[in-house]
Structures are given as C-alpha cells and as structure tokens.
C-alpha cells in the first residue's frame, strides 16, 4: 500500500460536513479503578509479546475496541520527515492506510517540534475552524473519511540500558492516532489519558525492542564467537583424533617391526625400569610383556646377570653410548652370547631420562670365532712342527759341515732357507695376531723403564741394522712404565725392523722417547708430513698422562692414500714388499693391537722421499 492514498469510496467530505458533533455512547469506564484495571488489562496483553510489531498491533486493536474508534493507527515518523502507518486497526467500512507513505508536508517540521514537546491533539471535528486544521491537511484527512481525530506523540524513551551508541536525532518516534470517520467526536479526557499511557507503553516497548535488538545483536555476536570457537574446538578435536590415530598406527607399526626383529629392544627409564620391550623378551626370557613392563632390570635379569650389566647401565645413564658383550641365560636354561648396546635418551630439558637397549644374539658368531681360533691354533701347531725340522735342517746344511754344495746348489739352499724363515715369521705373526684378537693373551704388566725396553729392542735389531748398513740411534729416557715388557719390545722391534727394511744403506733409524710435556720432535728436514687420521691422538688435558715413543727413518715414505690402511692386516705400501722385504703384512697390525691393549694409540706421519715416523703412546705410572 504505497503511493498516493486512495479516496474513501463511500464517504464524501461534503456529505459529512453537516454531521453534528455528538457524544459517544460507548460504555466507558466510570471509576478510576475501572480505568486502572482497563489499562492494566491492555498492558498485560501488550506484555505478552516482546515483538514490537505484535505489541503495536495489540495496541491499535485494543484502542480501537476500547474507544470504539473507526480507525486506530501508529504512524512512524522517519528521519527525512516522511512517515508511514506501520500498524492499523480499522473498521471494514473504511479504507486501510497501512503501509502508505506520506510526504513531509502531511507532517511538517513545526508540528513535529510541537509533538516532541508532548503536545496532544484532540480534534472533535476536523471541519470546525476552531480546530485549526489547515486546509490542505483537511483535504488530505478527508480522503480517508476522517471526521474527528485524537493524536498523541510517541517519544523515544530517554532511559535505555545500556545507553544507545548514538542518540536519536528526533525526539519523536511517531504518533498514536485514533480516527472517527462516521461522525465528529469529542474525545473524553479518559480517552486522551489512555492514548497517552499507551503511547508511553509504546515508548517503553520501543526501548525494550531497541534493547532486545541490541541484546540480539550481542547474542548473535557471542553466538558467532561461540560458533567460531566451537568450530575451532571441533577442528582441534578432529585434528587430535587424527593425530591419535596416526600415533596409534605408528605405535602399532613400531611394535610390529620391533616384534618381528630377532633382537631384544627396550626402553629403560632412569630408575632402570622397563618402559617398552618387544616380543623377543617374552620369547627369550619366558616372561610376559606386561610382567616385564615397569619391572627393574635387576628383577628381570636376576642376581647372576645383573651385576655384570650394572657398570654399563651406569655408564649409559651418565650419557655415554655403551657397547659390550655378555652371557645371558634364557628361560629354557641355554646360555647365549649377546652384544648389548645402550643409547642414552636425552629429553627436551637436556636430562638423561633413560636409554634404549638393543641386545642381539651373537652366539653363532662367537662359535665361529672359537672355531676359527681353534683352527688357526691347530694349523699353526701342525705347521710349526714340520717347519722346525725343515728350518733346522736347512740351517745345518747352510753351515757346510755336511759337505760343500756346488754354487747353484748353494744358491738353491739359500733360497730354501730364506723362504723357510719367511714362512716361520708368517706362521708366528698369524698366531700372535690371532691370540691377541681372541683375547687369549692377557698383558702381564709390570713396572719397567722406557730405557730398558728401548735397549732390549735395539739389541735385538742391531744385527739386522748392521747387515743393512743402517745406524740405529737410540735416545732413551728413564721413565717408569706399567706395561707387558715382552709385547712392547715386540712392538718396538717390529717398527725398527720396518724402518731398517725401508731405509737405504748408510741411513739412520732413530728410536726416541718423549715426556708428555715435550712437544713432538719435527719430522726429518723439518718438512711437513701427512698424518694418519685414524690414529690421531688427542692431547686433551683430561686424558691420562702418556709417554710418546717414536721410530723415525729416512726411507722412501708412505703415500697419503696408504696412511689410513697401513695398520690393517696384509696392507703394504707395495704389494711386492712382502716378497722383496720379507715382511708378512701383519707386523703393524700386531703393533696396533699390542698398543691398544695397553690403552695407547699408534699412528704414522710420513713424507714421500723424506721418511716416516711411527709414533705410539703408553700410559705413565702415576706417582
């Protein structure tokens, strides 16, 4: 219902002009009490709803019924001065004007200002000049058949909590209007009062509606926030569930993998209690996983085995990676050789919270090693016996006491003798190495001086040096050592023997010993040398005090690419060296084993064409 208002069809202004003003005959409440009750009743109906539209409809309906008016409407004044009826109760005989848009002229600004100050307009007869209805307005209202009207302003409520963000520009919100169309009507005081009270109710409803709107806005805002938070939480729950699923799958996979491996895998906490163990524990020890979980290592391994483990456990809990071998007894009574690795677990606080324990069965390897040792032992014994006869017989023949051979015969005899000697050295070296590696040898350490060892080694090698026209330069020092003298002399003679073999006639071989505080002697001619990385010695002050032995030659030197492997078995600078020089290829390996068994290190510095220096360290007796 927008646009121009339509004229009422059945009522014409001229026709009604003669109609007299007369008192209404409606049964209006007579007493104050009745009026209060009536107002309370209407108020009660109004409060049945919080919806403004519904409240307004209730008001116009109730007012129309109570006043017996032909039309009651609520006209909302808009900010630009125009307006529109937003609620209406009208008798069917009269045109409805709900929703029509009225121009500013209908309700000029001066009228608005008057109403804003609380003006109430009661017009008994719109045509009565004393009513001072402007002609243009008269014409306008008569379009809708209005003969009498009662107008009360609806003002914005001043007390709104919380306060409005921006107060309304216009104090007037709208008008509550009653029309009498069938006749002029003098409006009673009570009717005016009722209209005013209801207008106030509308103001309150408007304020409440505004509050309601604000509340709804806040609720919507909060709801949106809650929904967003809820959505975020839902996503987090989904994410966590996915992570949990992934973790479970990962754990399951880890368990499947660890259970499939034929090794003991465990995580032990810093109280030495198992926090994880794989199926192999059950298979080996005959205890269920749950029985082992949470148990201490002492409980699981028992008093026979645990004491052998304890120092290594302490070592791991001190933050060191530990590898050792042990013998363990399985639930079926069999004994197994195992290799055990402990890897410390350092948590985010840099605290050692436990260690991972890996235990693998090396019984087969040990059995093979024993067989190998036994085989080498038997073979070497079986070789030595005939070699003794052969060697001795050749030596006797070489003396010529059993007759003089021809020149060729003598040459062949010497070939046989030399190669027998080489074979003897090889057999001796193989057996020495095998014994050291198998652990069959225990170094019988005793107090001795470096001087004693060096003199003994030089005495042993003097004949060979003279034969090769090499000068042995011995520079001993009386430093007390705690070593197996026989083995250290063997190491020294091996190194001196090599130095002699690879030196030219007329050269020198030095045997040097240095106290720990002395800087190492520079290599021959002061030239920079290449050092074997594998055996480099750290000079950290935390290491025990060590003495440094050096055997230095002026020989051909060792290429850099051979320095790494020179201490490995059967590794020689030139593969023909073993034949040309009569070496076995095991001497340096044996030296390294001997030095390592004493807790020392061995390495070589060398410069091609200048010479080599073999160095090793030994711990000094702590006074």
């Amino acid at each position, binding site marked *: 219902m927008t646009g121009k208002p339509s004229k009422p069809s059945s009522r014409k202004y001229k026709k009604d002009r003669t109609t007299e003003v007369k008192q209404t005959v409606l049964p209006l409440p007579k007493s104050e009490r009745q009026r209060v009750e009536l107002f309370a009743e209407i108020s009660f109906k109004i409060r049945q709803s919080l919806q403004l539209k519904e409240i307004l409809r209730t008001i116009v309906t109730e007012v129309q019924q109570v006043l017996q008016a032909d039309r009651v409407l609520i006209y909302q004044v808009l900010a630009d001065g125009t307006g529109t009826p937003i609620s209406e109760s009208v008798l069917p005989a009269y045109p409805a004007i709900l929703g029509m848009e009225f121009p500013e002229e209908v309700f000029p600004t001066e009228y608005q200002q008057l109403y804003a100050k609380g003006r109430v307009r009661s017009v008994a007869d719109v045509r009565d000049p004393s009513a001072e209805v402007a002609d243009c307005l008269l014409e306008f209202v008569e379009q809708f058949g209005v003969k009498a009207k009662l107008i009360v302003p609806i003002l914005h409520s001043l007390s709104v909590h919380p306060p409005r963000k921006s107060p309304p520009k216009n104090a007037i919100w709208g008008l509550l209007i009653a029309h009498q169309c069938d006749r002029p009507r003098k409006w009673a005081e009570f009717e005016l009062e009722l209209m005013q009270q209801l207008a106030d109710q509308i103001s309150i409803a408007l304020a409440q509606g505004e509050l309601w709107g604000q509340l709804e806005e806040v609720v919507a805002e909060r709801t949106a926030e809650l929904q967003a938070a809820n959505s975020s939480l839902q996503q987090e729950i989904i994410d966590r569930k996915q992570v949990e699923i992934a973790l479970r799958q990962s754990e399951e996979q880890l368990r499947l993998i660890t259970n499939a491996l034929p090794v003991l895998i465990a995580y032990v906490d810093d109280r030495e209690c198992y926090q994880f163990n794989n199926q192999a524990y059950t298979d080996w020890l005959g205890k269920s996983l749950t029985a082992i979980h949470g148990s201490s290592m002492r409980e699981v391994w028992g008093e026979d085995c645990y004491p052998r483990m304890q120092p290594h456990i302490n070592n791991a809990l001190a933050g060191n990676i530990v590898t050792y071998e042990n013998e363990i007894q399985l639930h079926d009574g069999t004994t197994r050789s195992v290799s055990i690795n402990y890897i410390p677990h350092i948590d985010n606080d840099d605290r050692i919270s436990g260690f991972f324990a890996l235990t693998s069965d090396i019984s087969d390897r040990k059995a093979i090693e024993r067989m190998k040792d036994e085989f080498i*032992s038997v073979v*070497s*014994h079986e070789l*030595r*016996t*005939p*070699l*003794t*006869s*052969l*060697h*001795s*017989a050749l*030596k*006797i023949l070489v*003396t010529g*006491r059993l007759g003089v051979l021809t020149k060729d015969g003598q040459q062949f005899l010497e070939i046989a003798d030399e190669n027998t000697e080489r074979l*003897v050295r090889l057999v*001796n070296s193989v*057996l*020495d190495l095998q*014994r050291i590696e198998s652990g*069959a040898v225990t170094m*019988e350490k005793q107090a001795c001086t470096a001087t004693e060892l060096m003199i003994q080694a030089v005495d042993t090698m003097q004949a060979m040096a003279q034969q090769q026209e090499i000068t042995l330069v011995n520079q001993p020092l009386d430093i007390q050592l705690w070593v197996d003298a026989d083995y250290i002399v063997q190491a020294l003679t091996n190194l001196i023997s090599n130095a002699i073999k690879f030196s030219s006639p007329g050269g020198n071989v030095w045997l040097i010993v240095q106290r720990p505080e002395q800087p190492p002697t520079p290599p021959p001619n002061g030239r920079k040398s290449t050092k074997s990385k594998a055996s480099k010695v750290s000079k950290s002050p935390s290491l025990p005090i060590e003495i440094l032995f050096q055997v230095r030659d002026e020989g051909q030197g060792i290429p850099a690419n051979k320095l790494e492997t020179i201490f490995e078995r059967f590794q020689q600078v030139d593969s023909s060296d073993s034949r040309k020089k009569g070496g076995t290829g095991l001497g340096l390996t044996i030296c390294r084993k001997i030095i390592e068994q004493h807790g020392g290190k061995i390495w070589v510095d060398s410069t091609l064409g200048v010479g080599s220096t073999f160095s090793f360290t030994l711990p000094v007796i702590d006074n």
Partner: protein
Amino acid sequence: MHKRLLTIDDEESIQIVIKFGINMVAGWEVLSASGGRMGIDTAQRELPDAILLDVMMPEMDGLAFLRQLRSNPHTRLIPVVLLTANRYLPDKDLLTELGVVEVISKPFLPVNLVRQIDRALLN
C-alpha cells in the same frame, strides 16, 4: 762345559735336528726319547744335565711328564726347557713350580737353542 741333554719329542725329525744341531754347535751329548714314558725311564737311568721337552705329545703330555719327573727324588731337580709349537701355555707360575727354566718356541735355530739352554741353566 760339556753337557748331557735329553730331548723328548714324538717327532723323529725334530729329535734328529736337535741332536745334530746341538752336537754340531756345542759338542754336547744328546739323548733322545720319543714320548713321555720313555723320557721318564731315560731320565731316571741317565740323569741328564737338562731335559728338552715337547709339550704336546700323545699318551703322556709335557705337563704329565713334569709332574712325574718331580715326584721322583732322583729326577726332581733336573732343569727342564720346554719346546713348544703352541703358545697356549699353562700359567708361568705353574711352569716355574714344575721346574721349567725356559720356554722356547718352535721353530728354533740350533745355534740359538744352545745359547738359550746355556743361559737358562746358568740362571
């Protein structure tokens, strides 16, 4: 100084080279026995200045021979030099207790053998 030695070894070739080598180098008299039992008999009968004893022998090994030798008051003071192809030897203290004065590894040279025996006997 002239000496009489008894060599006990189940390898005949070893016996021959020892006997010839020592005789050739030092001129000492060398008696031979091919096993522990025969060695005990020879030792009791001949009372040599020293015995060169192989460790690994069938029937009676070197250690069994030594125990029996020491149980007889006539032979218990005869110094013994062990000749062995195997370096797996009993504890040094046990060997000393059984009167072993020297251990010589096979193979050996007759010249060195004489020197080693002489030094061991002097000690």
